[in-house]
Structures are given as C-alpha cells and as structure tokens.
C-alpha cells in the first residue's frame, strides 16, 4: 500500500442528514407546517440506498441510523486515521429531486444552516459545500451569496445528472457567482431522476445506475467545455467528485478529434480540450476505477499528462477501499503530496484564508 501523509485535504466526505425532520429547526413556520401536515417522507435518493454495499463500508456502518450521520464516527473513521487536516463536507441529501422551486429553496437553506450548526461549528477541520436549489437559478445564486459570507463554505455542489446539461447558458449566473466568490463548482455523482439515469434510458439495476455515473460525468465535461463555460469564466474550477478519472484520457482523445473536425460550430472553444481540463477541471481520487496494479495506474497518470488533476478523497462513508488503503499501490511520494496537499490547496482558494486565520489565532 501507499501511505498517506499527514496534513491532507479530504475533498469528498458525506455527512448524512438523519431525516427530513432534522431540518425542522432550520425551517420557517410555513415549511415546518408543510413537512408535518403533508406527512412528507424522508428525501433519501435511490442513488445511494442506505443498505447498499456501496453506500457504506461494512466497518463504517453504524449500529443504527444512516451511515455518515455521526460527527464522532466521521472524524474518527475518516479524518484521524489519515492525519487529515481539512475535510470538505458534501451532503448528498435528495433535495435536487424536489420539483417545487420554493420547497427546494427552503430545504437547501435549511440544509446549509444545519451543516454549519451540526458539523462545521463542531470541528474546525471541516469545511462545507453549498447545496443549491438548481431548480431556480435566481434562488441558487441568492443561496450562494448568502452562504459565501461564511468562509468555511469552500465550494458549490451540483449533481452529475440534472435537468439540463451543466454547460447550458441558463446556469451561467451560478458560475458567475461561484467565480466571484472563489468557489469551485463541485459536481458529485447522483441524479435528480428528472431524466433517465442513462443516455439510453432506464436500466434495471442500481449497479447500472452507478456505472452510468461515469458516462454522465463525461457528457457534463463535454457540455462545460463546448458551451464555453471556461472561456467565459476562466478562473472557475470544476471538481468532479466520485466521478472516477481513469476514463479521462480516452474521453479527451475522442473529444479532441471531433473538436478538430467541427470546431467551426463552437468557435469560442479556442483551446484544445485537454488544455482546458488542465487549467479548470479536477477529479476526486476515489473511486479508483482500475485494477490493483501499479503499472496500470502509472500508465493512466502518464496518459493524463499532468500530476495536478487528482484531489485526495475517501468518499466516506461510501465503500471504495478497505482498511487504510485509501491511496492505490505504487504512487510515488511526490504524487502523493500533490494529490493530498498541493492540488487541493491550489483548487480551493478559500482554504488559504482559513489557514492564515488559524495561524494568526
């Protein structure tokens, strides 16, 4: 195994909301009443069925309650063992599935307040992602503005499968707000299930949906590049979370070939796709979709032609690795340092401010 080094940044942790009713203290009277009077059920998404093997590592599974719901478990299981200095919380509660724009907005505000109160306030190592009601771009921007005042929010969180492709111009005000506040856009695996979870329709199985996340990330990367998001917002970073990254080289070969062929269609894409990826797009480490063979992984990093694209993650509590094998075999020490420390700090501008503040205090 490759040993982690202390002081790393874990870019993909999933604190779980115990239940929709856990948001009640953070909702106003109207929405509290809506939840109770209408008998609303928990908004758990089928992307991660709580009892699915992939949703929690067996030894991380609590005796009762949802995996990832306990602060104590998260810090002792995900942070302490790897000497992690900073952990970024990406709540995956199913608010993106909500159809009502107003309800989505109220619930997102409550979820972000819950994250501050129940997690960020309780452990100084934790940072948060702003969950937004992408159902309504104006409200999403307002929520970014509201949360961005708290420097512990370091990212805006969206899903790999939504209503429209991420590059679409309708979403650009979100990217403008994120760039303005130095917040990367984190795109996490998951769907709002408003479209079929694959580009060829509805499959039969949970395993198909999970495999298809990688293809969804690929089409999103196409969309972000081709629509010109990074030409318009050159300082915006997009972080693909739980996306896998071993598909990146062959994906870019294909995109590059077609870009050469039909670039007259999108003249604003004035740099080669791989160049855009290198300057603006990052990927979380887990899952490592490769065989446990150091030579294979070495080839993949060579094909990526950069050691700056991958950011350390455990994907806690999802079951991506066993024991302390969070880093795949055979990573050279320089690359470990890049993945665990340098790359996350270069990506998340707001971590610098936090460090300086802590040092001053």
């Amino acid at each position, binding site marked *: 195994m490759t040993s982690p080094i202390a002081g790393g940044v874990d870019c993909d942790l999933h604190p779980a909301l115990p239940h929709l009713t856990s948001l009640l203290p953070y909702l106003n009277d109207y929405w509290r009443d809506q939840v109770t009077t209408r008998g609303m059920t928990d908004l758990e998404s089928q992307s991660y069925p709580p009892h699915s093997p992939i949703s929690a590592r067996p030894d991380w599974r609590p005796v009762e309650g949802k995996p990832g719901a306990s602060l104590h478990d998260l810090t002792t299981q995900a942070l302490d063992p790897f000497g992690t200095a900073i952990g970024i919380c990406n709540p995956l509660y199913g608010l993106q599935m909500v159809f009502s724009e107003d309800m989505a907005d109220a619930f997102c505000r409550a979820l972000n307040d819950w994250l501050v109160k129940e997690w960020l306030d309780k452990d100084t190592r934790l940072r948060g992602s702003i969950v937004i009601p992408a159902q309504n771009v104006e409200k999403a921007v307002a929520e970014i503005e509201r949360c961005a005042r708290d420097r512990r929010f370091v990212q805006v969180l969206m899903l790999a499968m939504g209503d429209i492709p991420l590059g679409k111009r309708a979403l650009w005000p979100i990217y403008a707000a994120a760039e303005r506040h130095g917040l990367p856009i984190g795109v996490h695996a998951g769907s709002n299930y408003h479209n079929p979870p694959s*580009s060829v329709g*509805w499959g039969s199985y949970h395993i198909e949906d999970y495999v*298809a996340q990688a*293809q*969804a990330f690929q*089409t999103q990367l*196409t969309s972000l590049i081709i629509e010109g998001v990074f030409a318009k917002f050159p300082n915006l970073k997009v972080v693909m979370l739980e996306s896998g990254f071993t598909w990146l080289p062959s994906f870019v070969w294909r995109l590059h070939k*077609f870009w050469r062929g039909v670039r007259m*269609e999108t003249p604003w894409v004035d740099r080669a796709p791989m160049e855009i990826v290198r300057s603006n797009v990052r990927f979380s480490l887990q899952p490592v979709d490769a065989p446990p063979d150091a030579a294979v992984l070495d080839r993949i990093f060579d094909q990526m032609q950069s050691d700056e694209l991958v950011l350390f993650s455990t994907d806690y509590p999802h079951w991506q690795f066993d024991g302390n094998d969070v880093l795949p075999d055979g990573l050279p020490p320089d690359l470990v340092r890049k993945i665990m420390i340098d790359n996350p700090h270069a990506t998340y501008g707001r971590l610098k401010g936090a460090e300086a503040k802590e040092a001053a205090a």
Partner: protein
Amino acid sequence: MNVQFRPAAERGAPAGAVTAIADCDIHPARRSMRDLYPYLSKRWQEHLETYGGHAYQGMMEGPPYPKAQPNASRRDAYPPEGGVQGSSLSFMQKQHLDPNNVVLGVLNPLNTGQGLRNQDLSAALATAVNDWQVAEWTSKEPRLKASIVVANEDGSAAAAEIRKRAGDPNFIQVLLLSRNVEPLGQRRYWPIYEAAQEVGLPIGVHAFGFGGNPITASGWPSYYIEEMVGHSQCQQTALASLVLEGVFARFPKLKMIMVEAGFGWAPSLSWRLDRVWQRLRSEVPHVSRPPSEYIKDHIWWTTQPMEDPERRDHLFQTIDWIGWDKLLFATDYPHWDFDEPMRVLPAGVSDADRAAFYLGNAKKLYGLT
C-alpha cells in the same frame, strides 16, 4: 475529413500495391425514400407519403442536430451522375473500393426505419432495406456484404427477419443501433439475440439512433459535437446493460461488434464494471463472472473514428488491453469523419498485427475465407 488526401488511384498506384483491407463500416445511401418503393407494398408507400416515418425525434426530415457537412458526408463523395454521397455503387467502387483495395466491405444502412414508433412500418421498411441491399449492392458487387436491418423495438418481428435471412450469403451480420427505447440489455431485445445466436451471425451495434431518450442523463445538449462525442457514452451504457442484464451469460455464443463508437473507453469501462460488480454482485447474481471477461470474450470493435492520442504508445497501451485480434478496420465511407486506411495506424505495429487489424480479424469473425 472532408476530402481524401490524394487518393491512391490519382497517385497512379495500381490497386494491387495497396494492402488488401476489410472496411467494416460502409454506409450505402438512398437517393430518397422512393428508392425503397419497389420493395414496399402500396399500403406502406402511401403511408410514408401521408404520415412520414414518425420517429422518436421531432423532425420530418433530417437530423435534429444539423450535421457538419451535407448528409454528414465527404464533399468529394457526390456521385458524378447525381444523388447523395454513398448512393452510387459505381462511384463507391471508383472512389473507395478500388483505390483502397477493399476486399470486404460491410454495409450498414442508416436512417432505414430502425426504431420507428409505428412497429408495422418499421418491420416493412427493414424487409425492404434488406431486399434493396441485395438487389442494388451485394448482388452486383461481391466484395460487399449486407447487414440484416431489423425493427429492433419489436423483438419478435426482428427475430423473424433474422431467421428469414438465415443462410443467405449476402448477409454477414445483424445490425442494431446503440440508442433505443430502452438499454440494449433489456428483455424486449432478447428475441433478437436468440435468433442471431441460432443462425450464427454476429450483431453489429452501430452508434446513433433515436429512442426518445435525451443523449445525456441531464437532458439535451446544444451542439452537434456533443451528440457526436456523446455516442461513445451511449455505447458504454448500452454495453454495460448487455453485460449486467446477463445477455452474454444467457447467449454464450453471441458475438457483438461495437461500431463507430470508439474503443478507447473499453478498458476504463471494464475496470469500473469489475470494481462495482465486486461490491454489488448480490443484485445481479446472473452475472457470474467479472464483467470484463464477458467483454473480452464477446465484443469486437470497429476502429473508426480511431482515437488518436498525441503519443502513439498511449494508443498501443489501449489496444494491448483490448487485443489486436478484436479490432476491425473501418472507414465509415462516405461520412465526413472517414479514416483513411493507410494513415490511421502509426508506425511500430508488427506485420502480423497489421494484417489482423486490416483484414484477418474481419475474415475470421465473419467466417469468410
């Protein structure tokens, strides 16, 4: 590419001087739908005139994303006698088969009624297209072989068409498209796999088609290039569905060819499938072996559009995983993104692998001598 660089014939090279190749993806075109009328009943001719094809997309005519070229085809491929690119056998012979020394050409007719919403029309058109391929192409040019076009959304009609053509040497594969109403592993398509296995023909799964599903899991993108690049994601998901539904476990002699969807993604998709299967195999007990094994045993890949990374060793690493014995050379003639035969493979490939890549693998798969 839009035009071919100095075709071999213009350079004055005799055909015999060019390596003999198989082209496993050639698109014969109709000048118009009326070319099929001799093979369609009066009823369906009138139906087409009155109602059109009624596909799973909104356009009466043409594609929803305008192509980069007229008919997505090379500008130098218009036949001198008129008609769209790919509609003239004599010009295809002169421009492509002769100068590129194509000794085996596999016809994959597109826009021929696969996956229309009216299943009876789809079945009638499939039969007509198959008759047309024999009458207008393969009976006149022995180097060309036809694909059995089927009404893929109607499994029993499709299976009947396959059995009807069994033993006819004009046909060497069944043709499906990647984008359908449901992922290709779903049971509605199993009669097709059963029939193909029974008659001993491989199935070519060509990228494209319209099944009513957006080409991303986040809805419809804006640009043609997104559709073109997106076909590889569709193909990946379709292949994952075939494996995870247990199609290859159920039909162990079935052979499939992934046509015009790239092959660079084969390793990373297989690795992801294997990893996730280790975790979630209790959900799919019918998938009893690691998914990559089914892919290695049952899948062949046409080459065009060939991935061309900056460094050729990256290409060779990918092919080494897939196997040099699993690639079938294809040009996609007359389409604009045609891969020119002798420029596609970088230097550094052994003679045996080259021979397999250009011709040997195709002959072996299709059982031709």
